[in-house]
């Protein structure tokens, strides 16, 4: 099973501009991927719609969540300082990391200090951003992913293709093959059996690991509380069993108050998987205190910037509202066809098409803002109302302003604009198009278009323009009051 996941360590390939067209073509002919995507995204999207429709005042809840997030972003410095102070007040340690490298170095430092050789990890997209596993392994530390999806990916050196369901690109049949090859067993492609197998193996990992690394879904500024949700319980085991707990989180995850948690929880699981709540919701305020029976003895919170303050200062600040529910991925007709790896980075789908250029370079990921038909389904699905289609078009406009598009396309639109500024030229152009296409048509359809438009006719016919456009029917229609007009 070969994967075309985005490159991790291949430095030469990382410098190349990401080719979405080539990547999406590979995805479209991958039958297993198509099957896996169809099974999963449709169900998540349907379930989200159903449960959101049943949520009383859903629109008000979304609007309130948007307001809170915008307030946080407008005063991020204040909330972050408050959060850090509270974490320290309850006995935790705070590490500030401007870059991925700084975040990894902070975690490596903690591991070295405690002589840690074995780490369990609960799912964290930020750790994908910083490529934490590779760094820890380089330090000779054994890292085990404990989210089932991440666990599957780790066995094949694969990478997540979804924010919530990282192994969504794998069918259960493929997963059975992975387990059978890795463990020398012979399991059927049966989800319950596969999960039970992973569970049994992971139990030993939790028991022996000396450090648990997790992400954070929300971080409360007023109490220093880390909120973490999972469906598998691996988050709770990662944060309570090993003696050291490290939280790796983006700085945008802070919310003003623990009182805001219910509102966001109301939206997160509904938007992500169509559940009213996740199975496990952990609120962690500081390390284990005297007299408590569980919890890590030491808590570290690593606050990661890695491009976020630059996004905050840009016209694209809105992207930082994202609570990583993945609803925009599940509903996106493009993501549904091509899957996450086609986007070439940690964050795929509609939100990734904005975040990736912002975090990793607009030039390298110049394709991504175009990887959308602008259908608007993502905006409809987003629990915090991020106007993704609008910002995709703005990024395209940025590219035009910066002269980053093919000269031919620029010229084409220049001519188009000239033509559309004159009724005469528009009408002449229309006639010319019909005359030009007519010889290649049959029954009013063109089977092959030339040059850059050939892609259209690779998949469908192109209609021949009418021999009598509406503007030539109007005079008669006007005179005859509509009665005698011929269609």
């Amino acid at each position: 099973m070969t994967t075309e996941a985005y490159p991790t360590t291949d430095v030469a390939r990382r410098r190349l501009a990401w080719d979405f067209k080539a990547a999406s073509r590979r995805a479209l002919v991958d039958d297993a991927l198509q099957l896996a995507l169809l099974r999963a995204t449709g169900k998540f999207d349907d379930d989200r719609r159903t449960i959101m429709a049943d949520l009383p005042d859903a629109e008000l809840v979304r609007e309130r969540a948007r307001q809170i997030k915008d307030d946080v972003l407008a005063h991020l410095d204040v909330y972050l300082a408050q959060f850090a102070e509270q974490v320290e007040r309850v006995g935790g340690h705070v590490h500030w990391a401007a870059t991925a490298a700084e975040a990894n170095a902070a975690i490596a430092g903690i591991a070295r200090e405690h002589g840690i050789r074995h780490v369990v990890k609960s799912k964290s997209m930020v750790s994908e951003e910083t490529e934490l596993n590779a760094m820890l392994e380089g330090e000779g530390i054994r890292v085990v992913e404990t989210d089932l999806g991440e666990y599957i990916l780790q066995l094949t050196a694969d990478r997540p293709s979804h924010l919530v369901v990282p192994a969504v690109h794998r069918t259960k049949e493929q997963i059975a093959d992975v387990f059978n090859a890795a463990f020398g067993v012979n399991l059927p492609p049966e989800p319950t059996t596969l999960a039970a197998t992973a569970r049994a193996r992971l139990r030993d990992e939790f028991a022996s690991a000396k450090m648990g690394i997790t992400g954070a879904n929300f971080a409360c500024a007023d109490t220093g509380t880390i909120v973490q949700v999972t469906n598998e319980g691996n988050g709770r085991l990662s944060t309570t069993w090993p003696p050291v707990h490290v939280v790796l989180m983006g700085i945008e995850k802070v919310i003003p108050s623990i009182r805001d948690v219910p509102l966001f929880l109301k939206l997160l699981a509904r938007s992500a998987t169509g559940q009213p709540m996740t199975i496990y919701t952990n609120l962690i305020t500081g390390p284990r205190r005297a007299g408590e029976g569980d919890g890590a003895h030491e808590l570290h919170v690593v606050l990661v910037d890695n491009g976020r303050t630059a996004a905050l200062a840009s016209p694209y600040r809105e992207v930082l509202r994202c609570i990583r529910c993945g609803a925009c991925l599940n509903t996106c007709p493009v993501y549904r066809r091509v899957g996450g790896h086609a986007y070439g980075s940690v964050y795929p789908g509609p939100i990734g098409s904005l975040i990736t250029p912002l975090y990793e370079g607009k030039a390298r990921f110049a394709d991504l803002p175009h990887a959308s038909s602008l259908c608007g389904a993502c905006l409809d699905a987003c629990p915090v109302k991020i106007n993704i289609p609008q910002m995709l078009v703005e990024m395209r406009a940025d590219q035009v302003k910066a002269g980053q598009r093919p000269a031919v396309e620029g010229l084409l639109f220049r001519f188009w604009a000239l033509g559309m500024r004159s009724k005469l030229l528009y009408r002449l152009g229309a006639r010319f198009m019909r005359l030009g296409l007519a010889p290649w048509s049959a029954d009013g359809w063109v089977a092959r278009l030339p040059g850059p438009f050939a892609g259209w006719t690779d998949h469908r016919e192109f209609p021949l323009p009418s021999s009598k456009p509406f503007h030539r029917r109007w005079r008669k229609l006007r005179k005859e009051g509509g009665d005698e007009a011929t269609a």
Partner: protein
Amino acid sequence: MRASLFITCLADLFEPAVGVAMVRLLRKHGVDVDFPEEQTCCGQPAFNTGSWDDVRPVARRMLDVFDGAEYVVSPSGSCTAMVREHFPELFADDPALADRARALAGRTYEFIEFLVRVLGVTEPGARFDGTLTYHYSCHLRALGMTTEAEDLIRRLDGATYVPLERRDQCCGFGGAFAVRYPDVSGSMVADKVECIIGTGADAVVVNDTGCIMNISGALKRRKVPIRVIHLARILAGEVTGP
């Protein structure tokens, strides 16, 4: 009441019968219809690709063409959304033009939206002898439209309505998107066509010319004899069966 027809370039050139049907139907409802002949295109293709400097003069022209119109009515949700959502922001730096853009945006309607919300039409007053399904075009979302067209289709005399699976999933047109990433777009329209075929309908109602071109072109390529019809043509009594 007077409505100015904003035919849109695609409907003008590829689906002129839709314009004829709209004129007839609006007149039937007592609306005076005019057609400002200077109109060309709203500029959406250039806007969506980011060529905003090329769009402005074209959009500016639209402000002049429809200056003084009481209502502006278009057969396409996406062109309506272009005027309503994007014209005001295109002229954000010029308060006078921005005012005019907002005024135009405030009186521009998609055709079905105009029938239902402005004229208060609830009964289609037309028939279709056959089975119909319906594709929800993406830009109706931007206009806040939901089931207006379906409600009318369900009440057509003689028609059986079969809802389309993934009815509001984009057909893959997306203007330049279909040219830039034709294989992704082609895969999207293939899925749409599969869903349409799955309904067993004789015809699919599609109220946006871009989607009509895309879906009918894909059905044609697969030699599937399912018609793609704009609802205006059925409501005007011009099309009464498959």
